[in-house]
């Protein structure tokens, strides 16, 4: 039964991606990309990757779509048809596709428990991580403890992206005079937003701290909290949102998250163990792992929230400057 769901979802994904090529209206293209992201999140759930599905739905279909729509507001909605010939790209694509399909003929069967991918490190993680780390969610224990150094690099990449966008576009100046703007006449949206935004923030906190027991963790929580504040900025106007969460605070928060993460590693160094070895943070190694994982997930969540929100402020500030509603 799962094979049929798999087949149908992948076919829908292929049709959606194919239609992106032929459509000239860029707003439609961005919405189709949002649908593509949601469909791939469904495929990930079907393939037992619940953490990945959570991240793809919130990051890919949430933040990416919002940023692309923000860019479209600044660059225009229609793609002009070009006079370029398409034979050479089509040829390149067909040759590459044929070579790749020839490569997949040798691949092991889908879902086989004796695949080479399931042999070397994975059984050790599956069998030993509930005992060594003590968390039910194996993906969190691998992400935060066994491969914690990679996750530090990923947090640094998010921070670097925020720095890159801020140096290209700049943050909106905090305007002390103008307070009321935005959708003043849209009563239904204001009431619903006021009801929903505290619940979204509460859900973000739940996802942050529940990442040890179910799908979740720092990345998803940071993105959900940023989405709540983006909703606030869209409904009540950017100047009010910059009063609630000022851009200066976001700059400090983004750096603070990376500092907390790397600081946990340095604390382990001071307690005469390796960098990012959490077993020495408490008397009991398993309790030390728990403390270390909570600390670094907090750092990740803070950095991702501040980075996503400041990137949104940068794009929205450009639109306000051009006076586009």
């Amino acid at each position: 039964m799962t094979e049929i769901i798999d087949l149908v979802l992948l076919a829908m994904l292929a049709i959606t991606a194919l239609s992106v090529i032929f459509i000239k209206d860029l707003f439609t293209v961005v919405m189709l990309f949002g649908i593509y992201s949601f469909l791939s999140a469904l495929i990930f759930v079907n393939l037992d990757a619940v953490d990945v599905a959570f991240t793809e739905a919130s990051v890919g279909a949430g933040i990416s779509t919002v940023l692309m729509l923000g860019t479209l507001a600044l660059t225009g909605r229609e793609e002009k048809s070009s006079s370029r010939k398409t034979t050479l790209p089509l040829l390149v694509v067909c040759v590459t596709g044929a070579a790749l399909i020839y490569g997949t003929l040798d691949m092991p069967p889908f879902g086989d428990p004796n695949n080479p991918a399931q042999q070397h490190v994975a059984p050790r993680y599956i069998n030993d991580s509930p005992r060594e780390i003590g968390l039910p969610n194996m993906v969190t224990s691998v992400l935060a403890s066994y491969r914690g150094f990679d996750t530090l690099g990923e947090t640094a990449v998010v921070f670097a992206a925020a720095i890159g966008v801020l140096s290209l576009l700049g943050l909106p100046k905090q305007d002390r005079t103008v307070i009321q703007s935005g959708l003043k006449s849209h009563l239904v949206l204001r009431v619903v937003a006021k009801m929903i935004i505290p619940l979204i923030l509460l859900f973000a906190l739940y996802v942050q701290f529940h990442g040890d027991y179910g799908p979740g963790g720092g990345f998803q929580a940071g993105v959900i909290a940023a989405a709540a504040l983006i909703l606030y900025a869209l409904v009540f106007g950017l100047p009010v949102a910059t009063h609630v969460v000022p851009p200066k605070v976001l700059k400090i928060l983004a750096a603070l998250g990376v500092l907390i993460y790397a600081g946990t590693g340095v604390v382990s160094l001071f307690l005469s163990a390796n960098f990012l070895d959490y077993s020495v943070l408490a008397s009991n190694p398993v309790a030390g792992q728990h403390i270390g994982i909570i600390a670094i997930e907090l750092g990740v969540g803070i950095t991702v929230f501040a980075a996503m929100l400041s990137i949104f402020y940068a794009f929205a500030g450009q639109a306000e400057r051009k006076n586009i509603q």
Partner: protein
Amino acid sequence: MLEIISSALLILGAFFSLTGAVGLFKFPDFFTRVHAASVTDSIATILIILGLMLRSDFDLVLVKLLFILVFMLLTGPAAAHALAKSARHGGLLTLAETRGNKKESDD
């Protein structure tokens, strides 16, 4: 017994979703299409989540499903309202108004 009721609810929810999708193709005008999509979306959500609630025991999963139902009923109609309002703000005319304009310009 509970299985049969929950299966019936799930199938009914899927049927309403399908009619919403058919309505998206068949209806002539943007505003009627938004109406088709959002109304069938709400009833399909209620039926499917009720069907899923009947399948789980009385624990955390049931409460989470209840929360999901409340949030989707709150945000679905608000999203359809936002869509219709922004189309109106952008100047989109309903089918009756376009026909009225065409008749005036023909006379």
